[in-house]
């Protein structure tokens, strides 16, 4: 009976995460927004697993693991970038410019 509201909440949080990614330039804040979006997805998994079986909950574990790994590597990259550029602001990071 909480299925619909949970999915709606998940959608709202995901949307906020997207907006956050788009409006911020601080790479670490962007990471946090990504975490937010991952959590929104987790919520959907959990909500649906009540009816669809245990697979959804197992998946949440995997998502958490990936999030942790991503945070570790991502933050390490940030440290490396910061060492070079003295900043983690995306406007300064444009090595990909063609």
């Amino acid at each position: 009976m909480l299925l619909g509201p949970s999915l709606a909440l998940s959608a709202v949080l995901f949307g906020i995460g997207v907006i956050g990614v788009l409006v911020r330039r601080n790479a670490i804040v962007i990471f946090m927004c990504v975490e937010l979006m991952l959590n929104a997805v987790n919520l959907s998994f959990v909500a649906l697993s009540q009816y669809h079986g245990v697979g959804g909950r197992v998946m949440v574990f995997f998502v958490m693991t990936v999030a942790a790994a991503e945070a570790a590597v991502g933050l390490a990259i940030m440290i490396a970038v910061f060492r070079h550029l003295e900043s983690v602001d995306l406007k300064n990071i444009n090595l990909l410019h063609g």
Partner: protein
Amino acid sequence: MTVVQIVFYVFAVAAVIGAIMCITQRNPIASAFWLVSVLMSLAGVFVLLQAQFIGVMQVLVYAGAIMVLFLFVIMLLDLGGKTSDRRGAPSWVLAVVVGGAITVSMAQLADYTPDQLAHEISGSTELNADVVLLEGQRLQEAIEARGVVGAIAEPLFGFYLIPFQITGLLLLTAVVGAVVLAKRRI
């Protein structure tokens, strides 16, 4: 409206407010703390959704470990919001339009019911959730038989063993990678 629903909405509103604050705060540390509040609220929601173990994990791993890592890095790099990293108004408008569009598209699921899920899975309007969604019932039975942890542990170390192991490998790789990236000299 039952108590459970009221509690759910309280947590939901808290999560949404926390999320909005998270993305609007100028200081990354504040953002991080607001994010912790979102994660806590979500942990509550998980409990309400009968996923107590995941709720606990959420608090321990996410709010506890990952966010601490974030805070640690923010403080290490001394990013305490001296300058604003927010983009200008056009970006905001664009972001709100795009994000809003996504939210609205998905928020249509607010009145989604288990029966609709059953219909989508079976492709038939005749059958209802009780007949189709046997996996969900089995989960309930497993929780009753082995408790919330056991119910997850059994498939995790059984059917999902290999993905689980691969996840472990991923973590190991991430650890090594993080060390390589962050250290000046190895």
